[in-house]
């Protein structure tokens, strides 16, 4: 079992003719993902990475019976690409693009709430169900099949922590990078809910970071609604207020909200062990299984 993606997921790559799009389309196909088409306006009729390219997502989805897309489109055009995928409509849209303006995302988010589509990202590494499929830029080789559900706001931190798990023989049902922007399509709670409903997920690792209140909200949700045990990690304990730590969302406001301390306290209060180091996260997970 898994969440969101599996062997039946049929993927359109939006922006497949660009450098990143082309490279990762190839990487996904190599991993086993059903990449069935690309979509690039004006490039219909071409073939890239062995799949046909269409001018519109709508046509790609209809012709190739696709139900998901991965968006590799520059920030200025990314939200239009997401709107296009929402309208097709696809069941799942994974927006890799980093640097999407916040107000554009607010509009996407507004539209999203009226649809049944899951949007992952933007500014995310994507998601993977090890051994079946990956949608995004995650390096497939560090993941392994198993019973831990993984969710993270960060990309390379995901790799670091997953690698620690895999090295110890702890595999994953799925792993989802939800993205580091202030406004994202799918948040911790959405993913936790899916893992809770997945019978094969026996434990969950949740990697948060400073900024916003998503981790606090997730902690409350865990405390109230979840039986599956969760281990946490929070990056940015040493971040000073008012400074954006890379991710547009990773900023502790001047008023002290969004601190690592508040997130760790909330998670602890919900019964979640929070590791001080990635290694300690793996220790806690090992103890649970």
């Amino acid at each position, binding site marked *: 079992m898994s969440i969101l993606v599996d062997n039946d997921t049929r993927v359109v790559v939006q922006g497949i003719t660009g450098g990143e799009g082309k490279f990762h389309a190839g990487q996904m196909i190599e991993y086993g993902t059903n990449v069935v088409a690309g979509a690039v306006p004006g490039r219909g009729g071409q073939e890239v990475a062995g799949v046909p390219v269409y001018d519109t997502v709508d046509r790609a989805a209809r012709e190739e019976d696709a139900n998901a897309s991965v968006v590799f489109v520059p920030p200025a055009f990314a939200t239009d690409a997401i709107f296009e995928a929402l309208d097709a409509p696809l069941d799942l849209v994974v927006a890799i693009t980093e640097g999407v303006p916040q*107000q554009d995302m607010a509009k996407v988010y507004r539209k999203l709430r009226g649809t049944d589509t899951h949007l992952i990202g933007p500014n995310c590494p994507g998601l993977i169900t090890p051994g079946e499929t990956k949608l995004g830029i995650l390096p497939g080789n560090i993941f392994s099949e198993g019973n831990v559900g993984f969710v993270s706001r960060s990309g390379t931190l*995901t790799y670091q922590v997953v690698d620690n798990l895999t090295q110890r023989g702890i595999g994953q049902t799925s792993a989802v990078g939800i993205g580091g922007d202030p406004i994202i399509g799918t948040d911790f709670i959405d993913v936790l809910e899916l893992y809770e409903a997945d019978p094969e997920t026996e434990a969950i690792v949740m990697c948060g970071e400073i900024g916003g209140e998503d981790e606090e909200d997730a902690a409350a949700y865990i405390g109230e609604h979840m039986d599956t045990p969760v281990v946490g990690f929070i990056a940015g304990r040493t971040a000073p207020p008012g400074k954006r730590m890379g991710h*547009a969302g990773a900023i502790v406001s001047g008023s002290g909200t969004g601190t690592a301390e508040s997130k760790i306290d909330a998670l602890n209060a919900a019964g979640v062990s929070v590791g001080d180091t990635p290694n300690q996260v793996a220790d806690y997970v090992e103890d649970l299984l």
Partner: protein
Amino acid sequence: MKLHEYQAKGVFADAGIPVPDSTLASTVDGAVEAAEEIGYPVAIKAQVQVGGRGKAGGIELVDDATEAREAAESILGMDLKGLYVDRVLVEAAVDFTNELYVGVTMDRAEGKPVAMVSTRGGVNIEEVAAEDPDAIVREHIDPAFGLHPYQARKAVFDAGIDRDVAIDAASILTQLYELWEEKDATEIEVNPLMVTGDGEVIAADAVMNIDDDALFRQPDLAGMEEEAAEDDLEAKANEYGFDYVRLSGNTGIIGNGAGLVMTTLDLVDYYGGSPANFLDIGGGAKAERVTNALDMVFSDENVDSVVFNIFGGITRGDEVAKGINEALEQFEEIPKPVVVRLAGTNAEEGMEILNTDLVTVEKTLEEAVQRAVSYAEGGDQ
């Protein structure tokens, strides 16, 4: 990107929001001259981006040329909460009867903008929010429709603003939202919005933060960015296109990906060291970018050692190793000891390439951080 008060007020004035007459000055003589021209009383205000300027002595109200000179002399060149004051705004003092607060910010949890209004202006609004949340009226904005005029009115009336000035305050809130949208702001506020004896409202301070990710379509504001940079190193990071934050410690940190770099900082702290910076080289970095990153960190005189932590996804370990070698081979003597840890894509190839005469290689993140902390404390290389 934060605008300076004088920059934000320029934007406000262009949008038709009333602001006091003011002139920017970088010398004492210039400040006095400006004060004479505007006419007393004037406020002399340090142009640094930090809250609580008034309490810290960065704002003075003066009534004549002598006082203006004294104030300008004391403020220009002062150290205000760690920032050097090189410019002051000389501004007509407003004779006010009341101080309001109006602002627009992004409510991340709701994914939509929120307008805020309070009659408790002129003080730290975050303290007001903490101790008396009901003193601030919040009105969420549907991003598809924008702020409806009725919402602005509802907010000011619900906040209890006097009926005489309520409609004007609502208009200013509407204008602020229009600016927020037009300029891709993430935060915009007027605190205080002063009410004069004649029942006029005027923006006595101005805060405006712009979405860095939207600067590509805000050429006018992007042009202000350089002016607003606070620190030579941060300016250099802008040039190189790095996400960089300077901190006060002595262990330099370079990595790929915001979460992983933050985690590296946290581990430096966890192992008893003190991080000198946050530096994210981003995804897919090539050799040149790596060289630039090392140049950045070496340029920071506080740095005593460097930890270079890469977990490759798009980023390839061999490219990183090449960049590290190139950067270090140009030195007769390596300026600061460098500890490298490579994992993920092409990590093994990278390890093989790395010139171990120039760097220390560690296999795990924890070991690399501990080694760099030890070097920073003067430990053996």
